[in-house]
């Protein structure tokens, strides 16, 4: 099977699919910026926003809603679009003394017939005027049945901090996934070597571990670039990040161990033992500890984990094939490296 072509070709095709679809699919419209976030009850408020991937000037039914905490919605009375991504919504904000608080936090929902809807949660702060005026009970509506829907289109979700970098999901995370798949296979071959003492198994384990370390380093680099754009720094003191750096150190030490031993049989045996030991030590390192302490990564510190609302169906459609594609590419690289190692081994035996 390893010598056949179909899986290599399908791996490359899947990666092409990932790259083309992952990089070319547009994002859903979103709200980038909101100018006046503080409004007072009783006034006519102008809320100016900057949108992303929106068509405010082409759409004729621009409308916005303020969603209050008690599931009431306040529709805008008018909307003036300045360009495709700039628009001013006008709200006639009533007094609503029933929630005894001084400041009410509202989410802004915008909607038109071309872009559909976009939400900016907890973005508008409505301050109660000191002198309560007349209460417009009828100003609020109970549901959003008035939303216009442009129909389904294949687009990635817009997330406020991520913006376009959401596409890195297909590279950064999938590289980790395939790294772990290959590390696990490498440990499997290390155990098999320890059991049957066949040199081939050790070479496979070595090739797999080498390629996984390469993928791990690529994962670190893509993660670092991602962190620069979302969190603002190349390197953060985030646990998961530093744990992974340590994991890389552990596996780099594996290669130091390999190169430091002269006797080949001993090298294979000790390296296999270290590989198994390191993998076991890695499990608490990468999976357990980051879940205990706060992390900026999904899965802890209030961030949702994979499979929650983080990954919507359009992303899944690219994400899961991408894991398969990177793993197939990794196996291809491994098989090439394994053949090089095998040839070297044979040459060594001849001399």
């Amino acid at each position, binding site marked *: 099977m390893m010598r056949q072509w179909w899986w290599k070709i399908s791996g490359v095709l899947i990666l092409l699919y990932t790259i083309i679809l992952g990089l070319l699919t547009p994002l859903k419209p979103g709200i980038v910026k909101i100018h006046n976030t503080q409004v007072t009850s009783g006034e006519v408020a102008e809320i100016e926003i900057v949108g992303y991937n929106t068509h405010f000037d082409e759409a004729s039914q621009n409308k916005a809603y303020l969603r209050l905490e008690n599931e009431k919605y306040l529709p805008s009375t008018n909307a003036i679009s300045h360009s495709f991504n700039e628009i001013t919504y006008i709200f006639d904000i009533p007094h609503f003394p029933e929630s005894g608080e001084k400041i009410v936090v509202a989410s802004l929902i915008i909607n038109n017939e071309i872009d559909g809807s976009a939400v900016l949660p907890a973005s508008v702060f409505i301050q109660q005027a000191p002198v309560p005026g007349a209460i417009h009970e009828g100003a609020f509506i109970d549901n959003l049945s008035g939303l216009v829907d442009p129909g389904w289109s294949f687009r990635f979700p817009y997330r406020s901090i991520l913006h376009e970098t959401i596409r890195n999901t297909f590279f950064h995370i999938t590289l980790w996934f395939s790294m772990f798949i290959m590390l696990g296979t490498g440990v499997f071959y290390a155990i098999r070597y320890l059991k049957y003492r066949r040199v081939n198994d050790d070479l496979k384990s070595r090739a797999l571990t080498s390629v996984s370390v390469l993928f791990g380093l690529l994962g670190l680099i893509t993660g670092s670039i991602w962190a620069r754009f979302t969190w603002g720094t190349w390197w953060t003191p985030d646990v998961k990040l530093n744990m992974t750096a340590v994991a890389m150190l*552990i596996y780099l030490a594996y290669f*130091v161990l390999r190169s430091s031993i002269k006797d080949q049989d001993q090298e294979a045996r000790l390296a296999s033992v270290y590989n198994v030991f390191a993998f*076991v030590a890695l499990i608490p390192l990468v999976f357990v500890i980051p879940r205990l302490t706060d992390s900026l990564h999904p899965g802890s510190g209030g961030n949702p984990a994979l499979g929650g609302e983080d990954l919507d169906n359009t992303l899944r459609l690219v994400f899961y094939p991408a894991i398969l594609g990177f793993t197939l590419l990794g196996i291809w690289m491994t098989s090439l490296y394994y053949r090089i190692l095998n040839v070297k081994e044979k040459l060594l035996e001849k001399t």
Partner: protein
Amino acid sequence: MVNRILHIIAKDFRVEFRQKHAIAGILLFAVTVVFIVFKTFNTFTSQEWALLLWILVLFSGINAVVKSFLQESKGTYLYYYTLLDPVEVVLSKLVYNFLLCFVLFLVILGCMALFSGYPVRDHVLFFSSSLLGLAGISIVYTMISALAATGGHSGTLMSILSLPLVLPVLLLLIKTTAVALGLLTDSTVSTDLLLLAGIDGVLISICLILFPIVWKS
């Protein structure tokens, strides 16, 4: 089996005390380093205290454990190999190294307490987490020293291989120590202790499985 393990441990202690310079050297190293650190810092905050304590234990621990498979000649090991089960050997070495690390820990702790005070508030938590953490550290060190000793270049190889592996234990330890020192308030500290015990358990079982393979060479 327990009897034989105890015998090996007793023998190791006798060998250790016969070569007094080795153990004295390690202890002197620990005391000197604590003194140097104290003189450069003069006063520590509790956080630095916790960090320095564990870093010193970690590094003097490497020095102490690295020779556990080197202090006797190859002939002696061949003799053990014919006589003993590898599991007994590794268990006795583990217990011995654990005791050695514990003594080192106590000496360093005593020196730090002498020079810069003793900020621990929750003694039970501090000592229980320290014991669990020392167990984890000594398991990793023992396993890696066995690997490094068979590989040849033990000194450098030992520190390169073992320090990253010891890190999960160390991070948990620093956290629990911080809680014991009153720097952090954390209600989930019992989970951390359980996790430490879990890591120890996993490491010890993998060590028992893998050591016989290393032992054969």
